[in-house]
């Protein structure tokens, strides 16, 4: 059975801190790994990672994939209160099926 595990489950930081969120996976027919941000309802797409060792960057967010060790990290630098959300990791397998992790709940305090 495909499995995606995220850690930590939750995190409380102060504005300006840097955070690292972890995602490990055991998936047959791995195609790609996606990161999403979920605030109130719909997961909002952040990154798609397919190749090992290539960092994807968008503003203060960045992510990298290690296909040998089967994990990915999402970094957020200089956190802001607007970064408070649940961050979801999902792995794409056959049929473009996404298997989601349980998420990391990030709270950024002013």
């Amino acid at each position: 059975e495909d499995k995606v595990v995220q850690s930590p489950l939750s995190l409380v930081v102060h504005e300006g801190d840097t955070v690292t969120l972890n995602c490990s996976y055991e998936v047959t027919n791995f195609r790609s790994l996606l990161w999403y941000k979920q605030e109130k309802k719909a997961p909002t797409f952040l990154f798609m990672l397919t190749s090992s060792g290539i960092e994807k960057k968008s503003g203060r967010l960045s992510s990298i994939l290690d296909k040998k060790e089967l994990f990915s990290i999402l970094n957020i630098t200089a956190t802001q209160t607007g970064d408070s959300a649940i961050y979801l990791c999902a792995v794409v397998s056959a049929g473009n099926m996404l298997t989601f992790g349980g998420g990391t709940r990030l709270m950024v305090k002013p």
Partner: protein
Amino acid sequence: EPEVTQTPSHQVTQMGQEVILRCVPISNHLYFYWYRQILGQKVEFLVSFYNNEISEKSEIFDDQFSVERPDGSNFTLKIRSTKLEDSAMYFCASSSDRITYEQYFGPGTRLTVT
């Protein structure tokens, strides 16, 4: 920016009733998906749909569920006879044929079965 839309935002139904959840995927996307999230639990895959047929479905997607693309814009999920455990947020997603893995989600329909 193009987005996936879903209607209704909230649906309340009685056990045993049929419900149809509606989605309008991003207009040039060709791959469509349904996921659900029971309150406090993970987002779970239900079904993927391409070229007017189901590509992949999970164990959750049993005979009570069906999907349809009735016209060029809508994508629907039907639950024939709802059960209490079908209460969840249902998300529709779509992806293009160029970057098929990058799935964009709609705002969801909260289904409450009483």
